């Protein structure tokens, strides 16, 4: 049971050190909160853009044209392949008769078909793809072209590429921005915690002279960082929850912000948990970085 006492000691001391550090703790908590707020705003913007892309993507369809000689079994096989493909949201078989009827709504085309005297069209599948697979459309089209009985695959290639490129640019630039924000915050947190360590250097020396083991000397400081990160994340969580509950409907009027009101709570919960984890990791890494300073290592 000793390890429980020891773990309890580390957590208790870590928490008490947050209180003992006073103003410096407040500084770290604010830095973590500001960072996480930026990250969560970025995540929110990404989410809004995802929604926007999703509604665009759903309007874009892919048509898979079968060859005139395609057999019934080839058609059935293709239908089975499409229904099992994770990128495909829905696949509807359009027979050449149905396609012809569709064409004949246009009088000019109707005249041309009459002149031909026979149905020049073939069976086809109309696919709607899942929005999140926008960047895989090209690969899907290439794969389908190789299927037996497939004559051609048609989709708005340029439009798809523009959308998927934009999505990729936004995701990558977002990731880079988030990383820069995180690293900057980490640097500031580490240096603020170094100041807190400097203020307690006499205690650190005393711990060494008392022969305290490494975990007893390092543990509370690392735990202090985790607590500070947690409190920073908690502040942001409270702020976002307040926005969700009270400002969501008001902002909905401005368009694009309807996500605040319509996003399921499950997704908010997942965001909050992510923020808590990121906050705690930020605090832990900051504290670890602070403990790596040369003078600290010499003392501890």
């Amino acid at each position: 049971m000793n390890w429980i006492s020891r773990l309890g000691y580390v957590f208790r001391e870590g928490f008490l050190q947050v209180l003992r550090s006073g103003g410096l703790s407040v500084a770290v908590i604010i830095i973590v909160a500001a960072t996480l707020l930026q990250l969560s705003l970025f995540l929110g913007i990404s989410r809004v853009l995802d929604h926007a892309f999703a509604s665009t993507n759903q309007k874009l369809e892919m048509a898979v044209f079968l060859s005139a000689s395609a057999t019934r079994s080839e058609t059935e096989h293709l239908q089975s392949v499409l229904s099992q493909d994770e990128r495909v949201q829905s696949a509807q078989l359009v027979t050449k008769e149905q396609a012809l009827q569709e064409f004949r709504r246009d009088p000019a085309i109707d005249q041309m078909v009459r002149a031909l005297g026979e149905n020049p069209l073939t069976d086809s599948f109309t696919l709607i793809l899942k929005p999140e697979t926008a960047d895989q459309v090209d690969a899907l089209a290439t794969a389908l072209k190789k299927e037996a009985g497939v004559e051609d695959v048609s989709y708005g290639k340029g439009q798809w590429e523009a959308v998927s490129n934009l999505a990729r640019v936004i995701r990558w630039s977002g990731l880079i921005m988030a990383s820069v924000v995180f690293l900057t915050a980490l640097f500031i947190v580490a240096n603020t915690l170094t100041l807190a360590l400097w203020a307690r250097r006499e205690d650190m020396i005393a711990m060494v002279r008392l022969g305290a083991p490494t975990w007893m000397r390092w543990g509370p400081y690392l735990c202090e960082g985790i607590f500070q990160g947690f409190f920073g994340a908690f502040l942001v969580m409270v702020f976002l929850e307040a926005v969700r509950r009270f400002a969501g409907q008001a902002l909905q009027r401005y368009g694009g912000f309807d996500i605040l009101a319509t996003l399921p709570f499950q997704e908010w919960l997942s965001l909050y948990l992510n923020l808590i984890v990121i906050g705690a990791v930020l605090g832990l890494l900051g504290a670890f970085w602070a403990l790596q300073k040369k003078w600290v290592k010499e003392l501890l």
Partner: protein
Amino acid sequence: MLIQGFHLFQMDETGLPLLDDVYFSFPEGSYTVLLSENVLAATAFLKILAGEKRPAAGTLRIGHQDPFAFTPSQRNRWLSDVGMVFSDFKLFSDRSIEENILFTLRAKGFWDEDSLSAVDILLSKAGLAHKSQMRPSELTDGENQLVMALRAMIFRPRLLVADDPFQNVEGEAFGLLFKFLRELNKTGTTIVLSARQTAFLDEVKKSGEDLAIRWIQLDGGKLYPLEEKVS
């Protein structure tokens, strides 16, 4: 722990000798009091014994080991047998005196529930039970000094090195601390402590304590035996 020093030299920051070719042997379980009017020299000598400061030259053996050749983990293990009292070895200012002493026990690996009651019993014996939850800043200098000594003694170290532990400790507290040290010594702890010469001798004589202690004097960087002076 047997402590032996051979040809130890130490200098102050300006290069003046504090220890000048000092050699000695303190047997295991002995109780040695170093009398000196030179505070810097006494502190330098004790810091060497505690393995805190390497001498400028010479060899030190504590329990047949060289404390300056330890790796950090070996030193940590070694420190679990060594108690220290130095004026720059302050108590934790943001913890109560009970927590300060308890921390020492924790650092030495005592995590059982009896640890806290051991601290309380010791504080009670020292007449500080009613102040156990106070911070060091709320205690007098003498009380703080007493707590620092208790912190160094509670885990019954094999070696206790104390730099003027009686500083500011007067009257009843002086007698108590003196008694604690004697009791600790009787359990086998080797004790080396320093004291300012005249004041300490006067106090010891007043307390009427048994003086079966090894007395030495540090003067001009040299150690001299002092049995004849205090008998």
